[in-house]
């Protein structure tokens, strides 16, 4: 097995992208994700890839669009304001059925907000990454290792589906340093370029076109196909961690960095004899509906949504599965103020003892 190294999140995922076969990156500087483009600016040329510092996020995502059309693995990354600017381009990627990976190392919002970490882009990521009613798989890892593994495998999903893949991190995961084991370099040859792509390195001798504009019946058909694909994701691709939920009377739902802080609190409360567990969505889309829907509501007295944003954004998705069978509470910090162990522990304790709603 590979050796372990101690790496900053942003740099580790940049290296994971290279090892996952990424050979093109375009992006525009924005905190707290700058180490991704900085790392790739020297690393991609080393492996025969190309790095462009785009003139904007709009240009960058469209550079990725052009490169992806040529059948190579592409990445762009940004944070809140920049993801908003990429929205049109992400919609075009989905419309043109182009694989690509997009990373949001999120920060406080709305507006220019704060450069400090926050989980304020859940709704954008899961409901409307752009116009036109499309979805992408949305992964939300909670350790640097899991982020590395997610990025490394992301193009497999993107190419399987011919659809962009979205990875939602936050400034904590991007900037934290942790021990990681980096995966092997994937070898992807020019002749492996997909047959739908505009590459002719694969020996294709007929015309190909890439577009997101279609005649009306064709577009309706493609919309329906996308709908089927999203349903299939619900069957095949849901990822979730369930921790101590079997006998739980209270269940915390938290993803990403919030799930790590929440897990600490859950373990501490268990020590005190409180029957509490944690559900951690790893895919935010598709949402792990069954984990929440199938809880034993004869035992569960309350669900607690903990997010590093105010108001909580995942709550509607949770409530749709709870269906009124128990109260749903929320706790969060926001604006770049971080969740901490004591705050989360105390908030949960207060909710359980009936002090909050």
């Amino acid at each position, binding site marked *: 097995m590979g050796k372990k190294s101690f790496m900053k999140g942003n740099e580790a995922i940049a290296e994971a992208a290279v090892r996952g076969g990424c*050979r*093109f990156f*375009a992006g525009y500087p924005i905190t707290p994700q700058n180490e991704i483009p900085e790392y790739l600016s020297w690393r991609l040329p080393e492996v025969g890839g*190309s790095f*462009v510092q*785009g*003139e*904007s996020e*709009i*240009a*960058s995502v*469209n*550079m*990725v*669009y*052009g*490169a*992806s*059309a*040529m*059948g*190579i693995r*592409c990445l762009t990354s940004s944070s809140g304001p920049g993801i908003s600017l990429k929205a*049109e*381009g992400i919609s*075009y990627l989905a419309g*043109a059925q182009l694989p690509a990976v997009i990373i949001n190392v999120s920060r406080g919002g709305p507006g220019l907000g704060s450069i400090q970490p926050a989980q304020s882009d859940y709704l954008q990521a899961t409901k409307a990454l752009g116009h036109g009613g499309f979805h992408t798989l949305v992964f939300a890892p909670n350790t640097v290792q899991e982020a590395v593994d997610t990025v490394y495998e992301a193009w497999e999903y993107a190419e399987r589906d011919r659809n962009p893949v979205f990875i939602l991190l936050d400034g904590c995961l991007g900037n934290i340093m942790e021990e990681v084991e980096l995966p092997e370099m994937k070898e992807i040859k020019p002749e492996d370029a997909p047959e739908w792509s*505009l*590459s*002719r*390195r694969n020996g294709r001798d007929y*015309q*190909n*076109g*890439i*577009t*997101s*504009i279609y005649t009306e019946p064709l577009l309706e058909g493609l919309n329906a196909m996308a709908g089927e694909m999203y349903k299939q994701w619900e069957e095949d691709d849901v990822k979730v961690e369930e921790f101590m939920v079997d006998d739980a009377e209270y269940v915390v739902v938290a993803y990403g960095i919030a799930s790590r802080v929440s897990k600490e609190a859950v373990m501490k409360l268990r020590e005190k004899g409180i029957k509490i567990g944690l559900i951690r969505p790893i895919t935010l889309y598709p949402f792990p509906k069954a984990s929440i829907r199938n809880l034993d509501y004869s035992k569960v007295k309350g669900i607690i949504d903990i997010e590093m944003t105010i108001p909580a954004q995942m709550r509607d998705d949770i409530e749709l599965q709870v269906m009124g069978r128990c109260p749903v509470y929320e706790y969060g910090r926001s604006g770049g103020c971080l969740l901490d162990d004591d705050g989360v522990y105390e908030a949960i304790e207060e909710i359980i003892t009936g002090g909050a709603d």
Partner: protein
Amino acid sequence: MAEYVRGTSLATAPSGYCPGCMHSLATKLVAEVLDELGQAENSLNVISVGCSALNLLYWGQDYVSVAHGRAPAAATGAKRANPERLVFTYQGDGDLAAIGLAEIMSAANRGENFTVIFANNQTYGMTGGQMAPTTLIGQKTTTTVYGRDPATTGYPFKMCELIASLEAPAFVARYALNSPKGVNDARKAIKKAFEMQLAGKGFTFVELLTNCPTNWKMSPLQTIDYMNTNTIPYFKPGVYKDKEAEA
């Protein structure tokens, strides 16, 4: 006797451009040059948003259709991903000189090794004839009903002049498609631009002054006269930059 044939870069679908529209002439010129260079199959048409998006139907070789104004960005990605391909964008003036101004200037400034064919008809054709960044002073459009007034809308962008002022671009030229001479000069300029790209010389830019009979509310013949008396005096044809000639 010269043979008159449809370029193999063009599909066999009949043109749906308005009668007298020079987009079809410009497209045909590009196709002819690609054939002449034996580059039809190796070419990649980055199709922009505007009337030129109709080329989705008429283009017989590889294409990628991209968002409004972003063709130079998409071409940057495509060319870097596949440098052996002959990559060109084909953009209207709204696409290139308004919404896509950052993309065109930045791609030119990076000296990206692809070619831009810029069809300047001084209006937003596809959306029904609104003012474009290149609309002439006094020209009537659906959003300048009394004629373009520089006091509130400024002056028409001269893109060749702007791009030629940058260090990186290798070839910048403008010709008008309203005369046989203009068409011949344009064909030569397109050929030179493609050849320079194939030789790895960097960013090449060919502006084609075109018309829009429908939205200018003129007959095709009237547009030819209008271009002689109005368009060409403001947008002067010629070579604005040629690194090969300088060398």
